[in-house]
């Protein structure tokens, strides 16, 4: 007799646990949206002033509102939200046929969890009828979402996702905003070559995690292809605090040092290079230098170069676009920065800029296609070659790496001193984004 109530209790408990663990996803309230007219042509109120046909484009994406990616993802979504609000506030996107497209956001919290991403993107496509997709933040989540986009035939613009591998899986509808990881440090060789053609000996010392190793392997191959001699190529474990053994291994005559990994090790490495009085002409490290906290190193930070997807100091402009033979599209850097600061009361990071740029790319493609149809927008994306406040945008259209970003370049910042002797970040590469001349060679 006792078994029935026990079984019932167990069943109830299981139901409760399952219910708590998997709540039905409720769409997070989208940003303020305008009243949207039906997609069919609105009847003319007066013959003399015909009302344009208003179409609605649903943009679906997930945001990591909780979990470890929360900070970066929130900034990315802030950028995207700003883009959408600006387009809609300007009356929508006007197409060549006279119709107007208004954008509507549908999004869910992916909890920074890859497993949730696939479930939620399927829901965005099937239930929320998203016309276009924007990726979640991070390479891992974007990779998971890309499978779904491709499966259901929806265009996805990825942002906050630098990994190359997603675009080498034969997808045809996934387009990358960021510079791929394989080119994070290649620009440092270009900058070095532009500064001093005589420099040939480069040491690469990097963290041995996957990201840093991939970046440095690609940089090594690129450097060797350009005729540089990689005199030392060695990895250090994540969490390394003592770089003296690596510094002592740098051969005499080395002219440049590249590598690094993340903030903690990169800043320690830079500090110990300074303390040990390593005399090279050029130092470029991953990830750490663009962080504002890097300036706390004081003189050890002076002259250190680091790649970033974007910086507010980047001087991309219509003139730079013209010089590069590209069409300029969207707001200027100053317009974006001031609008972002006005709305969110903070300086935009590259995550924020990437979010805005993803929207801008989609906007340009829809405008060029004059349609919301996937095939036409895809053709416009394939043909796209523009420059925006975020930098140049062009996609690989080969079967091997379709959608891979091939025009956008990392901007390389360098810590320099202003007139008052304070350390400031300056963009020193690429030339079209330069805010100051590079400090070269390092004087130590």
């Amino acid at each position: 007799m006792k078994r029935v109530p026990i079984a019932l209790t167990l069943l109830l408990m299981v139901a409760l646990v399952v219910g708590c663990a998997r709540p039905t996803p409720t769409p997070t309230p989208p940003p303020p949206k305008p009243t949207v007219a039906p997609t069919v042509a609105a009847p003319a109120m007066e013959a003399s002033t015909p009302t344009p046909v208003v179409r609605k484009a649903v943009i679906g994406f997930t945001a990591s509102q909780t979990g470890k990616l929360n900070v970066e993802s929130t900034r990315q979504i802030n950028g995207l939200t700003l883009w959408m609000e600006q387009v809609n506030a300007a009356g929508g996107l006007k197409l060549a046929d006279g119709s107007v497209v208004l954008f509507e956001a549908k999004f869910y919290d992916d909890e920074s969890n890859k497993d949730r991403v696939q479930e939620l993107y399927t829901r965005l496509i099937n239930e929320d009828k998203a016309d276009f997709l924007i990726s979640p933040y991070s390479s891992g989540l974007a990779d998971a979402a890309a499978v779904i986009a491709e499966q259901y035939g929806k265009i996805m613009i990825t942002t906050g996702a630098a990994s190359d591998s997603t675009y080498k899986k034969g997808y045809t509808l996934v387009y990358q905003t960021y510079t791929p990881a394989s080119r994070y440090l290649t620009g440092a060789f270009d900058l070095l070559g532009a500064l001093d053609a005589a420099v040939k000996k480069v040491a690469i010392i990097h963290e041995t995690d996957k990201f840093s190793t991939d970046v440095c392997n690609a940089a090594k191959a690129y450097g060797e292809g350009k005729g540089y001699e990689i005199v030392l190529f060695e990895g250090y474990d994540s969490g390394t605090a003592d770089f003296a053994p690596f510094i002592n291994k740098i051969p005499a005559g080395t002219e440049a040092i590249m590598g690094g990994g993340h903030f903690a090790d990169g800043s320690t490495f830079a500090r110990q290079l300074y303390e040990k009085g390593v005399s090279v002409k050029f130092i470029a490290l991953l990830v750490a230098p663009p962080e504002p906290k890097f300036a706390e190193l004081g003189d050890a930070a002076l002259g250190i170069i680091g790649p970033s997807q974007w910086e507010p100091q980047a001087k991309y402009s219509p003139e730079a676009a013209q010089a590069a033979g590209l069409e300029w599209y969207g707001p200027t850097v100053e317009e974006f920065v001031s609008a972002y600061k006005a709305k969110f009361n903070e300086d935009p990071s590259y995550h924020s800029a990437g979010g805005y740029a993803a929207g801008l790319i989609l906007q340009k493609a829809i405008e060029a296609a004059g349609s919301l149809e996937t095939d036409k927008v895809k053709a416009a994306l394939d043909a796209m070659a523009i420059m925006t406040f975020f930098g140049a945008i062009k996609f690989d259209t080969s079967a091997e790496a379709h959608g891979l970003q091939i025009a956008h370049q990392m901007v390389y910042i360098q810590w320099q001193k202003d007139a008052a002797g304070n350390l400031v970040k300056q963009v020193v590469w690429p030339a079209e984004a330069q805010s100051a001349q590079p400090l070269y060679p390092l004087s130590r």
Partner: protein
Amino acid sequence: MLAQILASLVDGILLGFVYGLAAMGLSLIWGVMRVINLSHGAIMALGMFGIYLTFTHLGLNPYLALLLLAPASLLFGFLVYGVAVHRIINAPYLSSLLATFAVNMMVIGIGTAVFTTSLYNVDFSLGTVRAGVLALPGTRLAAAAAAVLITAGLYLFLYRTRPGKAIRAVANNRAAAALMGIPPAQTLALSFGIGTLLAALAGGLITTFFPFTILSGSGYQSKSFVICVLGGLGNPLGALLGGLILGAMEGLIPIVLPVSWVPVVEFTLFVLILLIRPSGLLGART
């Protein structure tokens, strides 16, 4: 090549003095009370944060801050001894292992809640001393000098003062020492306090040249075990010698092998010493 060997050797030895100081605390506690102190690394981390807080918030020179850290860590050692070690001092080794491990987990837990596991850095520099091919950061030189001074102080204390002699007597034969009127509980508490003090000071010196997190102590604790076995568990001078050997190895191995091989060689040596000469290079002596 010669320049690289010299630079690596000197760097390693300078670091070895601090390693030795850290291991000395562990060695002393084992030598006197036969307790393997698994909270050693956590106490080093506390020392690191002690210097960080006094430097960042009070603007105190890190070396002067060591003078504050020393009595504070001594008192903390008394507290840990009284709460976690005293009652199980005669129990099997596993009990004291678990008790000190529990202290370790508490310190790490509270430290993580307060400081998170983020990286901290004491932005303090003494410039760089150059001598030929050598470029030696002043902070490393100062840390090595401080380690030598503290070691000398410890030896003077152990061999020239009554409480020091009492510690040596208790280490030698606790029962006989008690019969001679030496209070074992107070002497053991003092030993644990001094061991804690040495760990905290070593942690404090490390902050002047390496960044750290609340979890940083565990790596130095592992090195301390290797050093103690190398020099002779229970022999503080052996610990210093072991520290210098380990530091020199860390400097020299990367010349011929990738740096990631250093721990492999270190722990191979650890096993070999245990097998071939379990008493260590200098043997157990207090």
